[in-house]
Structures are given as C-alpha cells and as structure tokens.
C-alpha cells in the first residue's frame, strides 16, 4: 500500500526552467492538495482539487499551475521557475475535504 507518492524527491533547477511535480495516490481519494513548506511559515496551500477534472486556487497559487486529468494523479507545474519557489513541496489526499489528509514524503526543490 503505497499511499501518496511524490516524484521526484529532489530537484535542482535554474531560474526560468520549467518542471512538473507528480503526485499519485492509490486510495481512490477525491480530494488532492499541493502545499509548500518554508522555514517558519508552516504549510501553505498552493492549489487543490475536489475531484477528477477540477482544480482550485489556494492561498499562494501565483507561479504554479495544476492538472487533475486522472483521479489518482495531481500534477503541479512551474512554467518559469524563480528562486522564490525554492521550497519543500508536499502533496496530500483525502476522501473528503473535512477529513484527515494523507501526505507524501515531499519534493525538495532548489531554484538557482
């Protein structure tokens, strides 16, 4: 039982490059989330999805795009990476929005 799997685990990018972070869950959850975690700032919600084909903005959506083409996958894209996007990114999923979320182990992203 893999739960929530994030790929890649680590990545270094140059400013202006693009990349996609993949989140996959095998629990048939409807809701999925992308957070970023920075020192002293807790978890900040970037985007989320309440079901296949849906996406919504969180509190820090600028510079990111997402897609939920399949129920089990939630992709986070950086079109033109900036040093301010250096962070640890976490994906989470849950059966219902008010219920506990299951987290992946994170992707550590550095933008030079």
């Amino acid at each position: 039982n893999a739960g929530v799997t994030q790929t890649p685990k680590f990545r270094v990018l140059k400013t202006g490059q693009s990349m996609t972070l993949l989140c996959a869950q095998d629990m048939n959850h409807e809701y999925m989330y992308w957070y970023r975690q920075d020192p002293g700032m807790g978890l900040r919600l970037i985007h989320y999805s309440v079901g296949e084909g849906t996406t919504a903005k969180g509190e820090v959506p600028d510079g990111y795009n997402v897609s939920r083409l399949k129920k089990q996958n939630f992709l986070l894209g950086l079109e033109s990476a900036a040093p301010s996007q250096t962070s640890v990114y976490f994906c989470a999923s849950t059966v219902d929005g008010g219920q506990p979320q299951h987290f992946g182990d994170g992707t550590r992203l550095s933008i030079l």
Partner: protein
Amino acid sequence: AQSVTQPDIHITVSEGASLELRCNYSYGATPYLFWYVQSPGQGLQLLLKYFSGDTLVQGIKGFEAEFKRSQSSFNLRKPSVHWSDAAEYFCAVGYSSASKIIFGSGTRLSIRP
C-alpha cells in the same frame, strides 16, 4: 475566517518530562480537529483526530488531546516524552462539507537529554 493558532514556535523539554502543546482555533461550528507530526525530512503523519463524542482522544505513540469547546482549544499531551518525539507538530481544523482543512503554523519540539 477560520484560523488555527499554535502560540509556541519552539519548545524544549527534558526526556521523561511531560509535554503539552497548545492549539486554539477560531470557528463557529463544531470543528473536526487533528494533530499531525512531522519528523525531519518526512511528510506529515496523523497522530490523532476528534470528530465528536468523548472530548479526550487517544492517538498513536502515546499522545492524547483534549477538546475544550469553551476555550476553543485542542491541546496535545504526552505524560513522558522520548528522544524520538523530537519533531514538528501541527494542529489542524476541518469541518463537515469543507473542501480543505486549516493548519496551524506548527510547534517544533526539541528533547533535552
């Protein structure tokens, strides 16, 4: 707007001592309440949850939390901490029909040998 406050950014306790981490929330309806733990380099793991009923809930790793409606609090406790409890702890609030839960900013716990 709903909010969650963890007033302690960093707490240090001696191994074997008791622990209480504070959490206050701001929300009008009956909340769902959660505590998560994050070990270094890891994702968040659910410690315990409260939906309704008994206001004292037991979780994994010997932790418990008590919901006090009158104080809008959901404090996390452990009678005797172990060095392996050193981690960051997050309180979170959700509610029925919500699309997401709200996380506090976290409390980092250090253990003194």
